Protein backbone atom coordinates (compact mmCIF):
# COMPACT_ATOMS: atom_id res chain seq x y z
CA UNK A 1 0.00 0.00 0.00
CA UNK A 2 1.16 3.49 -0.78
CA UNK A 3 0.35 6.86 0.65
CA UNK A 4 -3.24 7.89 -0.18
CA UNK A 5 -1.99 11.26 -1.44
CA UNK A 6 0.33 9.47 -3.86
CA UNK A 7 -2.54 7.24 -5.03
CA UNK A 8 -4.80 10.22 -5.76
CA UNK A 9 -1.89 12.00 -7.48
CA UNK A 10 -1.51 8.89 -9.66
CA UNK A 11 -5.19 9.15 -10.58
CA UNK A 12 -4.65 12.80 -11.55
CA UNK A 13 -1.63 11.83 -13.68
CA UNK A 14 -3.71 9.16 -15.42
CA UNK A 15 -6.34 11.83 -16.14
CA UNK A 16 -3.57 14.10 -17.51
CA UNK A 17 -4.14 16.76 -14.84
CA UNK A 18 -0.48 17.11 -13.99
CA UNK A 19 2.94 15.56 -14.13
CA UNK A 20 4.26 14.10 -10.91
CA UNK A 21 7.35 15.97 -9.78
CA UNK A 22 6.82 18.86 -12.21
CA UNK A 23 3.54 20.54 -11.34
CA UNK A 24 2.03 17.85 -9.12
CA UNK A 25 3.45 16.91 -5.72
CA UNK A 26 2.29 14.36 -3.21
CA UNK A 27 5.05 14.68 -0.67
CA UNK A 28 3.25 16.97 1.77
CA UNK A 29 5.90 19.58 1.02
CA UNK A 30 5.44 22.63 -1.16
CA UNK A 31 8.29 23.53 -3.52
CA UNK A 32 8.81 27.27 -4.13
CA UNK A 33 8.77 26.79 -7.93
CA UNK A 34 6.84 26.50 -10.21
CA UNK A 35 4.17 28.96 -9.13
CA UNK A 36 1.30 27.10 -10.75
CA UNK A 37 1.17 23.70 -9.12
CA UNK A 38 -0.99 21.18 -7.31
CA UNK A 39 -0.02 19.43 -4.14
CA UNK A 40 -1.62 16.82 -1.93
CA UNK A 41 -1.38 16.21 1.79
CA UNK A 42 -2.75 13.46 3.98
CA UNK A 43 -4.34 15.43 6.79
CA UNK A 44 -5.86 12.70 8.89
CA UNK A 45 -7.46 9.34 8.98
CA UNK A 46 -10.27 7.60 10.77
CA UNK A 47 -10.01 4.06 12.06
CA UNK A 48 -12.01 1.28 10.41
CA UNK A 49 -15.53 1.00 11.83
CA UNK A 50 -15.26 -2.74 11.99
CA UNK A 51 -12.42 -5.05 11.00
CA UNK A 52 -14.79 -7.15 8.88
CA UNK A 53 -15.43 -4.24 6.50
CA UNK A 54 -11.69 -3.85 5.87
CA UNK A 55 -11.84 -0.17 5.00
CA UNK A 56 -9.74 2.69 6.28
CA UNK A 57 -10.74 6.30 5.84
CA UNK A 58 -7.79 8.45 4.89
CA UNK A 59 -8.39 12.16 4.40
CA UNK A 60 -6.50 13.94 1.66
CA UNK A 61 -6.26 17.66 1.05
CA UNK A 62 -5.64 18.91 -2.49
CA UNK A 63 -4.25 22.42 -2.86
CA UNK A 64 -3.82 24.37 -6.10
CA UNK A 65 -1.47 27.35 -6.18
CA UNK A 66 -1.71 29.77 -9.09
CA UNK A 67 0.56 32.26 -10.78
CA UNK A 68 0.60 35.82 -9.48
CA UNK A 69 -2.67 37.36 -10.71
CA UNK A 70 -3.85 33.97 -11.94
CA UNK A 71 -6.80 33.45 -9.66
CA UNK A 72 -9.19 32.40 -12.44
CA UNK A 73 -6.73 29.85 -13.79
CA UNK A 74 -6.18 28.54 -10.26
CA UNK A 75 -9.93 28.28 -9.63
CA UNK A 76 -10.56 26.50 -12.93
CA UNK A 77 -7.84 23.98 -12.19
CA UNK A 78 -9.21 23.38 -8.69
CA UNK A 79 -12.73 22.81 -9.97
CA UNK A 80 -11.59 20.51 -12.77
CA UNK A 81 -9.78 18.39 -10.16
CA UNK A 82 -12.78 18.58 -7.85
CA UNK A 83 -15.18 17.47 -10.56
CA UNK A 84 -12.98 14.48 -11.27
CA UNK A 85 -12.03 13.39 -7.74
CA UNK A 86 -15.37 13.93 -6.01
CA UNK A 87 -17.42 10.79 -6.50
CA UNK A 88 -14.71 8.44 -7.74
CA UNK A 89 -15.96 4.90 -7.17
CA UNK A 90 -14.28 1.55 -7.31
CA UNK A 91 -10.86 2.57 -8.65
CA UNK A 92 -7.76 0.50 -8.13
CA UNK A 93 -4.52 2.45 -8.15
CA UNK A 94 -1.08 1.14 -7.13
CA UNK A 95 -2.74 -2.13 -6.09
CA UNK A 96 -5.05 -0.34 -3.65
CA UNK A 97 -8.78 -0.27 -4.20
CA UNK A 98 -10.66 2.95 -3.52
CA UNK A 99 -14.32 2.15 -3.05
CA UNK A 100 -15.39 5.76 -2.81
CA UNK A 101 -13.88 9.24 -2.61
CA UNK A 102 -16.02 12.21 -1.69
CA UNK A 103 -15.59 15.84 -0.88
CA UNK A 104 -15.79 16.90 2.77
CA UNK A 105 -14.85 20.56 2.48
CA UNK A 106 -14.10 23.14 -0.15
CA UNK A 107 -13.05 24.05 -2.73
CA UNK A 108 -12.34 27.20 -0.76
CA UNK A 109 -10.28 30.22 -1.53
CA UNK A 110 -7.34 30.57 0.88
CA UNK A 111 -6.54 34.01 -0.54
CA UNK A 112 -2.86 34.71 -1.31
CA UNK A 113 0.37 33.33 0.04
CA UNK A 114 3.29 35.57 1.07
CA UNK A 115 4.29 36.17 -2.56
CA UNK A 116 0.71 36.99 -3.69
CA UNK A 117 0.04 33.67 -5.38
CA UNK A 118 -3.61 32.54 -5.08
CA UNK A 119 -4.40 29.35 -3.20
CA UNK A 120 -7.42 27.09 -3.32
CA UNK A 121 -7.97 23.96 -1.27
CA UNK A 122 -10.41 21.09 -1.04
CA UNK A 123 -10.49 18.06 1.23
CA UNK A 124 -11.60 14.55 0.34
CA UNK A 125 -12.39 11.48 2.37
CA UNK A 126 -11.47 8.13 0.93
CA UNK A 127 -12.88 4.66 1.52
CA UNK A 128 -9.75 2.64 1.08
CA UNK A 129 -9.68 -1.12 1.17
CA UNK A 130 -7.05 -2.51 3.48
CA UNK A 131 -5.54 -5.98 2.98
CA UNK A 132 -8.00 -8.73 3.86
CA UNK A 133 -7.23 -10.15 7.27
CA UNK A 134 -9.17 -13.37 7.45
CA UNK A 135 -10.83 -12.74 10.80
CA UNK A 136 -13.82 -14.93 10.14
CA UNK A 137 -12.02 -18.23 9.66
CA UNK A 138 -8.59 -17.62 11.13
CA UNK A 139 -7.28 -17.68 14.66
CA UNK A 140 -5.45 -14.95 16.58
CA UNK A 141 -2.15 -16.51 15.45
CA UNK A 142 -3.15 -16.06 11.79
CA UNK A 143 -3.89 -12.38 12.42
CA UNK A 144 -0.59 -11.73 14.17
CA UNK A 145 1.33 -13.57 11.43
CA UNK A 146 -0.47 -11.48 8.77
CA UNK A 147 0.43 -8.27 10.55
CA UNK A 148 3.97 -9.53 10.95
CA UNK A 149 4.20 -10.20 7.22
CA UNK A 150 2.90 -6.73 6.41
CA UNK A 151 5.26 -5.10 8.87
CA UNK A 152 8.38 -6.90 7.66
Amino acid sequence: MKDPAYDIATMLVQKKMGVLGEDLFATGDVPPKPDFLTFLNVTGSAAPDDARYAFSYAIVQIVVRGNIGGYVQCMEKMYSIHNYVHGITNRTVNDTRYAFIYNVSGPINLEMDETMRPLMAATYRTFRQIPPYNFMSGSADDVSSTIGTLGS
Partner: protein
Amino acid sequence: MANLKFEIKGANKLLRELAGSSAIVNKWVKRAMHVNVLDVKKLSMQNTPVDTGNLRASARSRVWQNLPKTLGEVWYNANYAVYVHEKTWTRLRSGRHKFLEHALYISQPKIKRTYVNALNSAFKEAFK
Protein backbone atom coordinates in the same frame (compact mmCIF):
# COMPACT_ATOMS: atom_id res chain seq x y z
CA MET B 1 -45.40 -26.95 0.75
CA ALA B 2 -45.75 -25.86 4.33
CA ASN B 3 -47.59 -22.67 4.91
CA LEU B 4 -46.28 -20.72 7.86
CA LYS B 5 -48.00 -17.80 9.48
CA PHE B 6 -46.44 -15.51 12.01
CA GLU B 7 -48.14 -13.12 14.32
CA ILE B 8 -46.41 -10.74 16.66
CA LYS B 9 -48.64 -10.09 19.61
CA GLY B 10 -48.93 -6.43 20.42
CA ALA B 11 -47.34 -5.25 17.14
CA ASN B 12 -50.15 -2.82 16.38
CA LYS B 13 -49.96 -1.42 19.91
CA LEU B 14 -46.18 -1.01 19.52
CA LEU B 15 -46.64 0.94 16.27
CA ARG B 16 -49.26 3.18 17.86
CA GLU B 17 -46.95 3.82 20.79
CA LEU B 18 -44.03 4.61 18.51
CA ALA B 19 -46.10 7.11 16.56
CA GLY B 20 -47.08 8.80 19.78
CA SER B 21 -43.57 8.86 21.23
CA SER B 22 -41.89 11.05 18.62
CA ALA B 23 -41.75 13.97 21.08
CA ILE B 24 -39.86 11.79 23.54
CA VAL B 25 -37.46 10.57 20.84
CA ASN B 26 -36.87 14.14 19.65
CA LYS B 27 -36.13 15.24 23.19
CA TRP B 28 -33.54 12.50 23.70
CA VAL B 29 -31.98 13.03 20.27
CA LYS B 30 -31.60 16.72 21.05
CA ARG B 31 -29.92 15.86 24.34
CA ALA B 32 -27.55 13.50 22.52
CA MET B 33 -26.78 16.19 19.96
CA HIS B 34 -25.90 18.61 22.78
CA VAL B 35 -23.52 16.05 24.26
CA ASN B 36 -21.91 15.37 20.86
CA VAL B 37 -21.56 19.00 19.86
CA LEU B 38 -19.92 19.89 23.16
CA ASP B 39 -17.65 16.86 22.85
CA VAL B 40 -16.51 17.82 19.34
CA LYS B 41 -16.02 21.42 20.47
CA LYS B 42 -13.95 20.31 23.46
CA LEU B 43 -11.76 18.02 21.35
CA SER B 44 -11.22 20.65 18.67
CA MET B 45 -10.33 23.28 21.28
CA GLN B 46 -7.74 20.91 22.72
CA ASN B 47 -6.08 20.74 19.29
CA THR B 48 -6.45 24.40 18.34
CA PRO B 49 -3.11 26.15 17.76
CA VAL B 50 -2.55 28.83 20.38
CA ASP B 51 -0.62 32.05 20.00
CA THR B 52 -2.66 34.65 21.83
CA GLY B 53 -5.58 32.32 22.57
CA ASN B 54 -8.04 34.32 20.45
CA LEU B 55 -8.75 31.48 18.02
CA ARG B 56 -9.36 28.92 20.72
CA ALA B 57 -11.60 31.30 22.63
CA SER B 58 -13.67 31.95 19.51
CA ALA B 59 -15.09 28.40 19.37
CA ARG B 60 -18.89 28.38 19.36
CA SER B 61 -21.58 25.73 19.17
CA ARG B 62 -25.33 25.48 18.89
CA VAL B 63 -28.03 22.87 18.57
CA TRP B 64 -31.47 23.32 17.07
CA GLN B 65 -34.34 21.29 15.75
CA ASN B 66 -35.98 21.67 12.40
CA LEU B 67 -38.16 18.62 12.81
CA PRO B 68 -37.73 15.85 11.86
CA LYS B 69 -34.09 16.95 11.70
CA THR B 70 -31.91 17.76 14.70
CA LEU B 71 -28.91 19.86 13.81
CA GLY B 72 -25.71 20.75 15.58
CA GLU B 73 -22.97 23.15 14.61
CA VAL B 74 -19.48 23.89 15.87
CA TRP B 75 -17.60 26.83 14.44
CA TYR B 76 -14.86 29.34 15.11
CA ASN B 77 -15.64 33.04 15.09
CA ALA B 78 -12.10 34.30 14.43
CA ASN B 79 -11.90 35.61 10.88
CA TYR B 80 -8.56 33.90 10.24
CA ALA B 81 -9.72 30.48 11.50
CA VAL B 82 -9.98 29.01 8.00
CA TYR B 83 -6.35 29.80 7.18
CA VAL B 84 -5.05 28.13 10.34
CA HIS B 85 -7.35 25.18 9.71
CA GLU B 86 -6.53 24.67 6.04
CA LYS B 87 -2.92 25.76 5.53
CA THR B 88 -1.52 22.37 6.43
CA TRP B 89 1.93 23.11 5.03
CA THR B 90 2.71 25.92 7.46
CA ARG B 91 4.47 25.44 10.78
CA LEU B 92 2.67 25.65 14.08
CA ARG B 93 4.11 26.09 17.54
CA SER B 94 1.24 24.23 19.17
CA GLY B 95 -1.92 22.37 18.26
CA ARG B 96 -2.54 21.05 14.77
CA HIS B 97 -4.06 21.94 11.44
CA LYS B 98 -7.54 20.62 10.67
CA PHE B 99 -8.35 20.78 14.36
CA LEU B 100 -12.11 20.85 13.82
CA GLU B 101 -12.26 18.15 11.16
CA HIS B 102 -9.97 15.91 13.18
CA ALA B 103 -12.16 16.30 16.28
CA LEU B 104 -15.20 15.23 14.28
CA TYR B 105 -13.52 12.11 12.94
CA ILE B 106 -12.03 10.88 16.18
CA SER B 107 -15.29 11.39 18.06
CA GLN B 108 -17.39 9.40 15.57
CA PRO B 109 -17.49 6.14 17.58
CA LYS B 110 -18.57 8.12 20.65
CA ILE B 111 -21.21 9.98 18.63
CA LYS B 112 -22.73 6.68 17.49
CA ARG B 113 -22.68 5.35 21.04
CA THR B 114 -24.36 8.48 22.39
CA TYR B 115 -27.22 8.16 19.89
CA VAL B 116 -27.73 4.48 20.65
CA ASN B 117 -27.88 5.27 24.37
CA ALA B 118 -30.25 8.18 23.72
CA LEU B 119 -32.61 5.98 21.69
CA ASN B 120 -32.51 3.29 24.38
CA SER B 121 -33.45 5.91 26.95
CA ALA B 122 -36.21 7.23 24.71
CA PHE B 123 -37.75 3.78 24.28
CA LYS B 124 -37.49 3.09 27.98
CA GLU B 125 -39.32 6.32 28.69
CA ALA B 126 -41.91 5.72 25.99
CA PHE B 127 -42.72 2.17 27.07
CA LYS B 128 -42.33 2.34 30.82
